[in-house]
């Protein structure tokens, strides 16, 4: 007993100290303040160090990175995330990435929090051929903080060689033929979004009663799921997935990795097709912002855009990219998406109200638990 008696007394003393500390720090945030002084500086395109890219997995042709590295004699490393929230968390914790790939909505958020750097687009020769829509997008007026990387639709990818009946509906995610081999994207917006569409709600609804209904839909769909994953290419190629919620380019990427490309198909759903843009930005914590900017320009070069699109299957709104995507669409019209749909933006994910976003993440956590 005496061994632990002392421990208890120490514990009490510590507890008292804690109470005082807690009172003192209440109201303080747990994050360290980032050095935001660089936020206002304009980044100049020049090589100022190695490049650390933070991107979705299997989203960029590795050869492009290797060529850029060789051309400039630097090292290019790619680190992956599978979740935009995780990306933001790492960024806020001081993660010193040079180039990140947020979606449109996240660009606006990061801009408001002064977490990304400004640059002068006219200094990038290859940015001239970008589609005019991106000169002044809703999430980044005057395009000073981001450049578009790719745009996409969300639909369902599936195996054609397993006798599945597909109905071009989000209800295909509970297709009884494929029960136990269905994946849903591990993304709170995509997951809740498709449930909203099934129930006829606005994609970005913030109404609690509607979200609760969607939650029930999700719980019902969860019964037949094999897992949640944003790595659709991997789950398709490895054979774990017979059906998966996926982004349009992933089906092309998956086809590139198997002997028989025709086993994968993609459908968009009649209840609604979410669209969006993925952009590239430079965080304020970047150690080599100049290199990042030069790499952005390099990606937009027509020849590089062409091969990147052929590799990852997503339309890129730049010369070279447009041609490549048109070719892919000819072979498979289902993956098509055009900029008018993007400009329309009612089918784009936009949760700008922080409370709504917390409501969504709460619902998502409850679904996954």
């Amino acid at each position, binding site marked *: 007993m005496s061994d*632990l008696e002392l*421990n208890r007394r120490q514990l009490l003393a510590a507890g008292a100290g804690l109470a005082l500390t807690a009172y003192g720090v209440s109201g303080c945030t747990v994050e360290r303040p980032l050095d935001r002084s660089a936020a206002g500086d304009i980044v100049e395109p020049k090589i100022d160090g190695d490049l650390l890219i933070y991107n979705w997995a*299997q989203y960029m042709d590795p050869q492009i990175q290797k060529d850029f590295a060789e051309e400039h004699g630097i090292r290019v*490393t790619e680190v992956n995330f*599978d979740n935009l929230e995780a990306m933001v968390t790492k960024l806020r*914790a001081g*993660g010193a990435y040079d180039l990140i790939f947020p979606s449109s909505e996240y660009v606006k958020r990061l801009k408001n929090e002064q977490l990304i750097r400004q640059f002068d687009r006219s200094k990038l020769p290859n940015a001239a051929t970008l589609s005019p829509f991106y000169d002044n997008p809703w999430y980044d007026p005057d395009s000073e903080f981001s450049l578009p990387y790719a745009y996409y639709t969300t639909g369902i990818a599936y195996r054609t060689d397993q006798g599945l009946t597909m109905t071009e509906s989000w209800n295909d995610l509970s297709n009884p033929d494929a029960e136990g081999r269905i994946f849903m994207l591990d993304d709170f917006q995509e997951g809740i979004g498709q449930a909203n569409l099934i129930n006829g709600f606005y994609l970005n609804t913030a109404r609690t009663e509607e979200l609760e209904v969607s939650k029930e839909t999700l719980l019902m769909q969860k019964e037949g799921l094999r897992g949640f994953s944003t*790595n659709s290419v991997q789950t398709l190629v490895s054979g774990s997935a017979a059906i998966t919620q996926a982004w349009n380019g992933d089906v092309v990427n998956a086809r590139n990795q198997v002997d028989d490309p025709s086993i994968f198909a993609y459908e968009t759903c009649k209840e609604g097709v979410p669209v969006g843009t993925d952009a590239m930005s430079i965080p304020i914590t970047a150690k080599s912002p100049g290199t990042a900017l030069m790499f952005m320009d390099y990606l937009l070069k027509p020849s590089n855009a062409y091969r990147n699109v052929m590799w990852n299957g997503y339309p890129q709104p730049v010369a070279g990219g447009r041609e490549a995507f048109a070719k892919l669409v000819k072979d498979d019209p289902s993956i098509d998406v055009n900029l008018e749909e993007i400009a329309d933006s009612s089918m784009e994910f936009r949760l700008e109200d922080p409370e709504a976003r917390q409501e969504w993440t709460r619902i998502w956590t409850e679904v996954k638990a």
Partner: protein
Amino acid sequence: MNTASAFDKPRILRIFTGLVYLFLFVPIAVVVVFSFNSQKSLQVMDGLSFRWYEEFWNDPALRDSLFISIEIALITMVVATIVGTALAIGLVRAHSGASRGANVLMLVPLITPEIVAGISALLIFSQLGIGLSFWTVVLAHITFSISYVTIVVRGRLASIGVEVEEAAQDLGASRWESVRLVLFPALWPAVVAAGLLVFALSFDDFVLSFFTTGEESQPLPVRIWSMIRFGVSPTINAIGTLMMVVSISAVALAVLIPRLFGRRESGVKVLTGAEE
């Protein structure tokens, strides 16, 4: 009747044990064998080649991570061994109430799930404004390793006893001298064994590193996690095999060194604390 000899093994037990060994080794065999597979497949073995080892070596990020893991493990080993040995000596020799409290404090990291250790490390680094980096991983590893060293060294201390030190003091040595000239020489095989054990633990560690790593200099297990999550690659088998060789070497040394330096009992006994 004397103890059961090697001729008296019950059949069932032997078969059962054999099966368990099989269960334990099959995945390891798969990893090692497929690391030499010439094809990308993880199902079909198709000829021998070193290509996955080459891919590993040619990837600068992976190569860096290997060296980073080794560096972290070395620093952790040195610091944790010094601090932990001192702690062990102090705990065994002191008889104060404070040392009893310290004893309990020392045991807590050993039975705390790593995820909790990782989160608390993450929080304190965030709170103090320390960006996550190579050094935050080192600090976290040392914190968690001290207790292991203390446990191993303490076991050895218990069997050494105070008599020799007391004799030295009778002969005029100061307390510090008796510790330095008498205790340390008797103790050092256990210290080395504990250090190498800590090296292996740190080298292999994932959860703690996952929560405290920066993004540029990531230890190897964290890179492996990303590779597994984001893609299937046979290179993982090569990495796994390499890491196994490093870890086994460290522990083999830990077991052999006490034996080589004249102790009657084997290093395994030193490490598992079994009696002579």
